[in-house]
């Protein structure tokens, strides 16, 4: 064991380090990890927590990383300065993951390999828990709290905030709170007595989280549906989207019961599969309800045929894709942006669908709200492309912003409007914007009735196989989307003052990319930054590519799927587009972006 302070290769790192905890899944480690994150949040320190877990219920390795950043960067980092090795099976690789000069807290019963340049503290976790928790059968439940206690003492967490965090985590259930707190205190006391004080990686109270919220991403997305006015939600359980549907059920019960009758103003149906889920959404959307489903990649594949039906019959539908790593079953509990091309063009024939890319919980919320309006306005299926990192991790984020625009139901003809019209056709482009008018089933006027179909149809919705008609229809459907991209969330642009290099990211790739750009800037590489928030791209995206000599597109898939869409959108500048695609399934590490851009820029 090395001496105190020897880890300080470069002086104290206050509020600027990364912690990794290695545990076994199914042991309650998520509760312990969230107590740490809640404590940092309560202390006013910006941090991010990432749960890297297996597709398994109990017994396989799981890791939780916490990035503490006084500068507010919450992207993931590959290197970790503080490591808790709580899983015997992974102790060797966990020691490998420690940054030079870092500290490891390892169970004293584990055999550990020799490694130079780091500090290893052996902690009698079992004995601490045994003494803190007299009831043997409960020890398993609180065991993880032992490392919380050790870290609290070593990193300088405020014990009052740890206590409050435990209260929040266990919903103030007295027995659970007492047991967990006792374990934390015992472990903290042990560390104070037996470990040298640790002055390199420390936290200090701040104000960075003031006015911010701490929320699991999918819960924010679900709130977006609630405030977006969802009326029918149909879903089939699939990781990592299930928690959105489950949160939605809970939130609707709290916020959307009819105050007069106590009855629901919504319906949530657990469907028999993803096909049925989207089928119900389309049926409900046709009948005039704001309807949605939430799924992940395998579900998207199954929904392909129905997506084409919604597109072609011009029926509103909102689909959330909480992306996970494919192809096939892939890595069901690892994050990805691998569905972008699928979503944009889902289904056979010429189809195209608007896709929204939320980066954080507050945007997940606002884009869900907007998605219902856009689906109704454009009369089409729309995808909200979230991912596992956003959906299943807890984020310190901006508060959820109340929607300022009223709910938009789009061009729906009322019975009075029908009566005033001498004639009308379901698919006529009356306004020249490619968007027709629709009527809803049940409208009490015989002239409102329309029979719609997934087969060829003319502008009066009559069956048609006519060549000219089909060309006209498919052209209008394209125009309907491309001429109305202004309805979609526009990109955010941060110009680098004449920089030759442009960087593009979207969704959760934003966090690592923004930090990488900042580091590159300090190294002398100025770059403009554009964050795409929707597809099809608007003119600002195309102009951005045209203004920069080299445009790096950062995303979490192998093939640079959004980069491909970009090269198609600006073929004359296709050679400028350079893809940085990461398909490791972990939340995008800053180092991956940094190293890739550095390397490619060296070759220029």
């Amino acid at each position: 064991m090395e001496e105190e302070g020897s880890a300080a290769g470069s002086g104290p790192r206050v509020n600027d380090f990364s912690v990794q905890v290695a545990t076994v899944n199914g042991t309650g480690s998520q509760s312990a990890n969230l107590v740490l994150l809640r404590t940092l949040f309560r202390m006013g320190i910006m941090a991010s927590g990432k749960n890297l877990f297996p597709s398994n219920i109990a017994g396989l390795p799981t890791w939780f990383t916490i990035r503490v950043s006084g500068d507010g960067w919450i992207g993931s980092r590959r290197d970790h300065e503080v490591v808790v090795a709580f899983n015997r099976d992974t102790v060797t690789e966990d020691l490998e993951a420690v940054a030079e000069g870092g500290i490891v807290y390892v169970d004293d019963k584990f055999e550990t390999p020799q490694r130079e340049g780091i500090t290893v503290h052996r902690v009698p976790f079992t004995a601490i828990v045994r003494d803190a928790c007299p009831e043997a059968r409960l020890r398993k439940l609180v065991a993880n709290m032992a490392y919380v206690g050790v870290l609290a003492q070593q990193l300088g967490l405020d014990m009052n905030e740890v206590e409050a965090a435990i209260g929040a985590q266990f919903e103030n259930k007295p027995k659970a709170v007492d047991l967990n707190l006792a374990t934390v205190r015992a472990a903290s006391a042990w560390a104070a007595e037996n470990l040298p004080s640790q002055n390199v990686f420390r936290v200090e109270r701040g104000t960075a989280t003031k006015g911010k919220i701490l929320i699991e991403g999918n819960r924010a997305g679900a709130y977006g549906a609630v405030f977006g006015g969802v009326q029918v939600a149909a879903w089939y359980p699939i990781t990592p989207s299930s928690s959105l549907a489950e949160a939605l059920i809970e939130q609707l019960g709290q916020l959307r019961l009819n105050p007069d009758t106590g009855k629901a103003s919504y319906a949530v149906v657990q469907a028999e599969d993803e096909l049925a889920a989207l089928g119900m959404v389309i049926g409900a959307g046709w009948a005039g309800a704001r309807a949605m489903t939430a799924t992940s990649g395998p579900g998207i594949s199954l929904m392909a045929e129905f997506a084409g039906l919604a597109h072609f019959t011009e029926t509103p539908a909102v689909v959330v894709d909480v992306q996970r790593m494919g192809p096939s079953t892939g890595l069901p509990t690892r994050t990805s942006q691998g569905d972008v091309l699928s979503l944009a063009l889902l289904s056979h024939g010429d189809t195209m669908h608007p896709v929204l890319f939320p980066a954080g919980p507050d945007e997940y919320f606002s884009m869900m709200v907007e998605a219902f309006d856009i689906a109704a306005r454009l009369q089409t299926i729309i995808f909200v492309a979230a991912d596992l990192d956003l959906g299943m991790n807890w984020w310190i984020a901006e508060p959820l912003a109340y929607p300022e625009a009223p709910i938009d139901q789009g061009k729906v003809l009322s019975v009075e409007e029908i009566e005033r019209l001498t004639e009308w056709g379901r698919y006529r482009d009356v306004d020249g914007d490619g968007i027709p008018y629709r009527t809803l089933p049940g409208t009490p006027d015989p002239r409102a009735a329309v029979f719609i179909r997934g087969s060829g149809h003319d502008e009066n919705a009559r069956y048609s196989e006519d060549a000219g008609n089909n060309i006209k229809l498919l052209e209008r459907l394209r125009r309907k989307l491309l001429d109305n991209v202004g309805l979609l969330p526009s990109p955010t642009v941060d110009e680098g003052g004449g920089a030759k290099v442009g960087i593009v990211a979207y969704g959760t790739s934003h966090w690592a990319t923004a930090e990488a750009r900042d580091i590159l800037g300090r190294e002398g590489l100025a770059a403009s930054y554009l964050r795409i928030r929707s597809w099809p791209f608007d003119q600002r995206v195309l102009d951005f590519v045209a203004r920069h000599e080299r445009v790096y597109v950062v995303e979490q898939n192998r093939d640079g799927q959004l980069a491909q869409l970009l090269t198609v959108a600006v073929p004359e500048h296709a050679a400028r587009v350079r893809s940085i695609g990461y398909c490791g399934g972990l939340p995008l590490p800053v180092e991956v972006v940094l190293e890739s851009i550095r390397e490619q820029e060296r070759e220029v």
Partner: protein
Amino acid sequence: MATGAEKKPQENRIGLTIADYKGGKSTLCGGCGHDVITNAIIRAFHEMAVEPEKVAKLSGIGCSSKTPTYFLDRAHGFNGVHGRMPAMATGAAIANGRLQVIGVSGDGDTASIGMGQFVHLLRRNVPMIYIVENNGVYGLTKGQFSATADLGSKLKTGVVNELPPVDLCGLAIELGASFVARSFAGDVKQLVGILEAAIAHRGTALIDVISPCVTFNNHPGSTKSYDYAKDHEAPVHQIEFVPFFDHPMVEQEPGQVREVQMYDGSVVRFRPVEEDYDPRDRHGAWHHLKEAAVRSEILTGILYVDEKKPDFLQILDLGETPLVDFPVDKLRPSRAALDAVNASLMEG
């Protein structure tokens, strides 16, 4: 004075004639059983005086799924994708509980590609009429066997079906469906009575109708031909339907007639044909079906009915107001509600 006034088309109690329930011209083959069913639907909806604008018609893909354009032009319709009508109908029924939903499907659409959705629709008891126009073959793709073709049934080409059939009615009873009927396109009177009872029902009304395909499956050796079905049809009862708006007749022969009161107040009277048949006896219905199959009989009639089973809208605890009728401002919680959400999330 004109004494023999022109015979006016008969108006129903909401002042509509049969013409108001008609649709476009059928493009099916002459003599197709499906056209008979279409006409029975038109009659039943007219006689029950259903407002056509309150009806939503849905279908999947296949010859049968074309038929919703042939009836109730004044109703909205949606012809979707193959085998997925049940999910779309479920969504529509949930969104607007005032719609009278009718889905038309075929044996391929229901018993093969759509089997998954079909069984779950029955489990949920979604309020709708679900008609299977059952001819044992895929017509639009020119005559391949479907999953309801009987073992040993022969195609025109001589190919013999070697797989056992799916019995949609037996399956529906097994899964707890609340209204299960079988009929035959050659028995219009019975079919109209069943359809009227189905309109009066709340929950899923499954009606499996043997509907011969005159082009691909109406030859000797087929067990779904007109001749075969006529020879093998075995009605379990005669159906007399008394709509809720007609004065119910009181006189009846005691012990001879069973009566079931439907959800809307209509009454269905069942007059036994041979032995007594109780359509409220689920196990009995199932046994009758199995025994009839052994005798190669096609049991027809309302095989099972349960008017007490909650439908899916009741299970979802939806109120009287259809979801789509909620004013827009009721769909978004208040700014204060979101403030409270944010405040709680700020506590960490």
